[in-house]
């Protein structure tokens, strides 16, 4: 740890709007820390799924249950929404309010599409008798994926409040900071999803025993 104190490379006026206001910039730091708590939260759910992944208790197994169709659709929707969300931030840096709003609304729509597909998928499982009561494996599966899904749902409502605020107040240090933290959240959920489709779906579908 060096004792030397260097200065920020950019003078304050050139900082992106989110960081221009000292206190608003602190909120970004706080939000990052919150995201890491969420990271550990998901890690615990992953761990639970990992240790319970063979506790079928005579219930259905992943090979019977999972299908590529909805999985590919969900993944595509979420990855694309991550992209549109990043474009909203790009437009906010360019001070383009309509740009921000349109990308943000597109993000919301993609998010709704994701949640809708997932709900549909869950309903079809329950229709097959795969309720979460049935086995430890199913409890862990529904809870992990469902927690992600409810995070996305929360994100959708959050984004809706942002739309209202942006329309009302335009792009200010405060609204742009809020948008920035929302984007962090959204991309973070994307990362979690990547691990879900890799660990929960793909690896289970190989039928192979993980180390």
């Amino acid at each position, binding site marked *: *740890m060096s004792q030397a104190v260097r200065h920020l490379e950019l003078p304050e006026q050139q900082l992106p709007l989110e960081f221009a206001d000292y206190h608003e910039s602190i909120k970004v*730091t*706080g939000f990052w820390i919150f995201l890491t708590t969420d990271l*550990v939260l998901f890690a615990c759910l992953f761990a*639970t799924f990992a240790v319970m992944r063979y*506790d079928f208790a005579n219930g259905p197994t992943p090979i019977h249950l999972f299908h590529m169709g909805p999985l590919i659709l969900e993944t595509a929707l979420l990855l694309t929404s991550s992209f549109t969300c990043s474009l909203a931030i790009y437009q906010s840096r360019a001070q383009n309010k309509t740009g921000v709003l349109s990308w943000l609304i597109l993000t919301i729509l993609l998010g709704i599409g994701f949640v809708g597909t997932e709900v549909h998928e869950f309903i079809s499982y329950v229709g097959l008798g795969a309720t979460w009561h*049935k086995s430890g494996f199913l409890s862990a599966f529904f809870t992990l994926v469902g927690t992600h899904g409810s995070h996305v749902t929360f994100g959708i409502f959050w984004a809706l409040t942002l739309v209202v605020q942006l329309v009302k107040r335009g792009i200010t240090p405060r609204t742009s900071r809020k948008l920035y933290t929302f984007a962090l959240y959204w991309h973070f959920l994307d990362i979690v999803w990547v691990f879900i489709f890799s660990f929960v779906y793909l690896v289970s579908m190989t039928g192979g025993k993980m180390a």
Partner: protein
Amino acid sequence: MSQILARLFPPQTRRPDEVVIEIGIVLSMLFLVYMLTRLKKWGWLWREWLTSVDHKKIGIMYLVSALLMLFRGGVDALMIRSQLALPNNHLLPVGQYDELFTTHGTIMIFFMAMPFLFALFNVAIPLMIGARDVAFPRLNAISFWLFAAGAILFNISFVVGGSPNAGWTAYPPLTELRFNPGVGENYYLVSLLIAGIGTTITGINFMTTILRMRAPGMTLMRMPMFVWTVLVTGALIVFAFPPLTIALLLTLLDRLFGSSFFTLGHGGMPMQFVNLFWLFGHPEVYIVVLPAFGIFSEVVPVFSDKKLFGYPAMVGSVLAITLLSYVVWVHHFFTMGAGPSVNAFFGVSTMLIAIPTGVKIFNWVLTMWGGRIRFTVAMLWQLAFIPAFLVAGATGVLLATVPVDYQMHNSYFLIAHFHLALIGGTVFGVLSGMYYWWPKMFGFMLNERQGKWAFWIFVSGFFVTFVPQYMLGFEGMTRRMYTYPAGLGWGPLNMVSTIGAFVQGLGFLVLVYNVLWSMRYGERDLTGDPWNGRTLEWSLPSPAPSYNFAVIPAVTHRDEWWEMKQSGKARAYKVKSSAIRPIHMPKRSAMPFFLGVSFFVVGFGMVFSWWVITIIGALGVIASLLFSAFDYNDSEEIDPEDVRRSEASLGRLEI
């Protein structure tokens, strides 16, 4: 209707301590309401406290709650000890002992130790780093009210519905609905979940505050040691509470919504709860002890009139403890038999923690070496801590020795280990901190003479209580036994332990007397620096004005205030009038209080599965969140003239 009443007040024999406490609580509530009404203080209460976002006031509210909970958990402990004083004792109705140790452990850890520490975080940290408040003042208030909601919910379980009774660790499948059909465990799960959210927010808040809001020039290596420990405690909280949240949440899902995580049937895996719980539980014990270490690192130099010895080593050891504490959790369940490689790994990693901890102990002693030690009450608590914690730590290392743990696990040896650590470390630490910062909080001193009486009585009772418990461990007495037969030789030692507990109780009463007496007759602290302090909080008047610093100081040294005094620059007492600018401060807000109430309602509904109530509460939560999303009017500006006036009235203004 009668059905509802039957669920709220199931037929059960009441514990005598509950009856006394509940009557006491109801009476004091009525008295409080009466006084507030008579003195027309409702508005004051609402404006100055319930809606306050000032870290100093939030700290005081935490402190008051923690002292109340210490009393409550202490009374539980006295009941435990009374029941165990004699073999074959039947002082308590069957089954109530189980509730006692559960509520005792839970309350002491979550509703006494944690809030007591948060009280001191709030009171001291912003002042020590030269900030005007924490990073998120409103979230800070939310943390407090969520803690309060959780604590109240947990505490009403005695009157309404029944208490949890599966230990503070609440291992399933004992907590599964089938083995534990009452609402008691729901109370445990829901109240800890709610309080846990608040705690997580506190962790985020203080980490952010310390990372981003230090006064100019206060580099990392110039931060007071307490600030360092709070920073890493924040990190510990942030990463340790998610496992707890998940463990509790999944158990709650099992109980309320029929999932099969930790159940005996349906391929449930109770061991995973144990695993998750200790992923939290072990860091938790460092969460409660590291800030105490920080307090000692402030108290020792001040009362030895000497610089802290080995500051870089102190920082390094705190960081090492933090990292290590994430990779030792299995030592709480060696006997689950996860295999020799797992046990050997976690046994050795646990022992390694002794090294950085030892560095800290030696550094405190070396700080005193060559100093001029003043035996104030704050210092005495620290001095009692060292011998006690040495024993606690050494017996901890014995427990980390895997084959030894196979014999000592869940025995009274373990009980003695952790009480020596929790009381000798945490409780002595917070009491030391309380005496130390008391004048800064309230503007008057606690009487030293009475404080010393309280100290000596409590500490002697403490050793008399817990040292015999080590021996009980060697005699094979296990924890959580509501009674034991004669003839095993456990009687005499238990009797000694019980006597010690009552002596501790006496010490606590003297402490309460000390506080109440000093409120009336205590000496006022007019200097703001009664101990000849070393850090920035002592450069402020006691208590500090709402904005803390009229002008934020520029820091050039570790122990900045002491250096200022050394170089004769004590004029920092004086604030340059021209340097005062308008100050932006957060506005008080009713939202945190409202959110706390809403969470309480949600929780209460969940406990009884009365979903209408839960939904009503949830609407309150949503309303609060929406309100704050659209609330852009949350700060206000203090006029420089007002600041000048108030600084002048404190005699601190230099024209």
